[in-house]
C-alpha cells in the first residue's frame, strides 16, 4: 500500500515527535490486545489445569498439572449435550426462516416500484424506536399458543428490522439497475428476476445475514428462559446459565464448604465456557470479514 506508507511517513524521515507518537501508539494497541486476549487465554489454560492449582492461584501464565478431567466430566453431562443439540436445531431453523423472510423482503423494499413504498418504510421504521415491551410481547406469544414450544424461541428471531434495512441497502447499492431492466426487456417476471438474477449476485449479503441470525440465536437465552418450561427444550445458553451463574449468594455454608463447592464447580465452568464458545470462536477468524462487511453495509445511509 504505497499511499498508506506515504501517509504514515514512509519515505520522509521521521521526526522525534513522530517516532514517539508511533511508539505510544504501538504500546497502547499492544496493551489493548493483551487485555482482550489474556482473559480468553486464562479460561483455556484453566480448563485443563488441576482445579486446586487454579483455585490456589498457581495458574497464571501456563497450565499447571494438566488434566482433562473437566472435559471428561462434561462429556457425561447429558443436559449440556441436549442443550447443544437443541441450540443447533433452533439455529438452523432460525437461519432458514430468517433468510426466507429477510432476503426477498429486502429486495422488494429496495425496488422503487413497490406499491405503498412510503407506508412500508414507516411501517418498518417505527418498531426500531418504539415497541410494546416485555409483558405485551409475552401475552402475544401466549395467545398465539407458542409458550413452551420451540417456535417461541425461533419465530420472534426470524426478522430483525435492522437486518431488513441492511439487506435493502445492499441491494440498492450493488445490483445494477441496468441488469434488471435488461432482464425485464427479455420478458422475465419479477419472481424470475429475483431467483435467477438477484440471488446469485447476493452471496455476500446472504452470508452476512445467515451469520448474524445464527450468532444471535446461538447466544440468546432470554426468550428461552421466559417461554420454555420443559427442560428438554432448553437451548445451550440456558443450560450454561445454570452451570455458570449459580450465584455466590446461593452458595451457603462455612468458608470450607464454599471452597469445596468452588473446587467442584469451577472446573466444569471453565470447560463449559470453552465447549459452548468453541464453534463460534473457531469459525470467527474465517467469517469475520463478512461480519465487518455487514457493519459497513449497515453504516451506509439508505
Amino acid at each position, binding site marked *: 500500500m504505497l499511499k498508506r506508507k506515504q501517509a504514515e511517513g514512509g519515505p520522509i524521515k521521521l*521526526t522525534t515527535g513522530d517516532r514517539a507518537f508511533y511508539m505510544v501508539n504501538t504500546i497502547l494497541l499492544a496493551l489493548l490486545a493483551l487485555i482482550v486476549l489474556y482473559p*480468553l487465554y486464562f479460561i483455556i489454560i484453566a480448563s485443563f489445569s488441576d482445579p486446586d492449582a487454579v483455585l490456589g492461584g498457581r495458574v497464571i501464565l501456563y497450565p499447571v498439572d494438566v488434566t482433562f478431567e473437566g472435559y471428561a466430566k462434561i462429556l457425561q453431562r447429558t443436559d449440556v449435550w441436549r442443550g447443544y443439540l437443541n441450540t443447533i436445531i433452533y439455529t438452523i431453523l432460525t437461519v432458514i426462516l430468517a433468510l426466507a423472510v429477510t432476503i426477498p423482503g429486502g429486495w422488494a423494499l429496495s425496488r*422503487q416500484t413497490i406499491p405503498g413504498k412510503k407506508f412500508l418504510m414507516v411501517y418498518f421504521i417505527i418498531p426500531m424506536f418504539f415497541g410494546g415491551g416485555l409483558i405485551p410481547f409475552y401475552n402475544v406469544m401466549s395467545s398465539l399458543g407458542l409458550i413452551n414450544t420451540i417456535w417461541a424461541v425461533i419465530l420472534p428471531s426470524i*426478522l430483525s428490522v435492522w437486518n431488513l434495512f441492511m439487506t435493502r441497502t445492499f441491494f440498492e447499492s450493488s445490483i445494477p439497475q441496468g441488469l434488471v431492466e435488461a432482464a425485464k426487456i427479455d420478458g422475465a417476471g419479477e419472481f424470475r428476476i*429475483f431467483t435467477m438474477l438477484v440471488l446469485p449476485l447476493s452471496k455476500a449479503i446472504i452470508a452476512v445475514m445467515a451469520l448474524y441470525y445464527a450468532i444471535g440465536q446461538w447466544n440468546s437465552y432470554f426468550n428461552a428462559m421466559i417461554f420454555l418450561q420443559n427442560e428438554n427444550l432448553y437451548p445451550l445458553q440456558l443450560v450454561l446459565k445454570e452451570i455458570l*451463574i449459580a450465584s455466590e449468594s446461593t452458595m451457603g455454608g462455612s468458608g470450607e464448604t464454599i471452597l469445596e463447592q468452588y473446587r467442584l464447580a469451577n472446573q466444569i465452568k471453565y470447560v463449559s465456557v470453552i465447549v459452548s464458545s468453541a464453534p463460534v470462536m473457531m469459525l470467527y477468524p474465517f467469517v469475520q470479514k463478512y461480519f465487518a462487511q455487514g457493519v459497513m453495509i449497515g453504516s451506509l445511509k439508505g
Partner: protein
Amino acid sequence: MDSAKTSPAPVKKKGRWLKKLRENYPFLVMIFPAVLVVFLFNYLPIYGLLIAFQDFMPGDPILGEYTRWVGFDNFTRFFNDVQFWPLMSNTFLLCIFGFIIGFPLPIIVALLLNATKSRRTAKILQTIFNGPHFISLVVMVGMLTLFFGRYGLVNNIIAAIGGERVSYFLQSSAFRPMYILSSNWQDFGWSAIIYVAALSNVDPGQHEAAILDGATRWQRVLHVDLPAIMPMVSVMLIMSIGGLMGVGYEKALLMQTDGNLGVSELIATYVYKQGLTGVPDQAYATAIGLFNSIINVVLLIIANTTSKRFSENSLW
C-alpha cells in the same frame, strides 16, 4: 438511490395505478412475510400496551365487555412506588457511566488503529479486538464470576499480595464497574469498525498536504482524521442518547445477586420481575415498561433535534 431516476414518474390515474399494481404485485408477495412477522411480534405488542391503562388480569381480553379502564392509575402508582427513584437512578447511572467510557473508546481505538504503520498489523489487531463481541451474555457473566468470584483470579492475586478476599458479586459498589468494563471489553472493537471504515476513506491527499505543511502525525490525527469521522460520531451520538435509558437488562439480570440488588435493579429488570415472576402484576409492569420506552423516544427526538440545529447531521 440512483434507481429513482429510472423508475417511472408517479401516475395518478386509477387505471395506471391498477396496472402498476398488477405489474408490481410480486414485490408485495416478497415483502409479505416480513410484514406479517413485524405485525405479529412488534405491532400486536404495541396494541397490547392498552392493558397499561386497565385493571388487567392475565387471560383477560384486551378489549372486552368487562374491561375496566383505570386511566393513569398504574403510572401514578409507579411514581409513588418506593422503588421509583432507585430504579430511575440505577438505570440512568449505569447508562451514563457506560456511555462516558463506551462512547469515546471505540473512536480512540479506531484512530489508533488507523495510525499504525502497517495495514497488516491493523487487520490482525482488529480481528483480535472484534473477537469478544461473539461471546454470549451468559458466558460473559460466567467469565466475570470466574474472574471476580471469591476464589477467582482477581482475588487470588489480591490474596497473594496480602489483601482481603472480596466477593465482588455481592458488593453493590462493584456492580457498575464490572458491568461497564465487561461490556466495553466485549464491544469496543466491534463499535470501532465503522469508524475504521470511515477513516480508511480519508483522502490520502489531505495527509500529504498536511505533511508538506510540516504537521506531525499527532497533529494529523487531530486535524485530518478526527474531522473526517465527525459526521459518523454525531450520528452515533444521537443513537446512543436515544438508547440512554434502554440499557441491556438481560445482562443485568444475569449479574444480579441479593448483595448488589440495590444498584443492579433496573427499570427493565423490575418490569420482568413484576410482570412475569411471582404473582404477576402485568398491567403495572406494562405501564412501567411503557414509561421507559416513552423516555427513550423523547430522548431520541431531543438528541436528533439538537443535532439538526447545530450541525447537518441527523437521523431524519
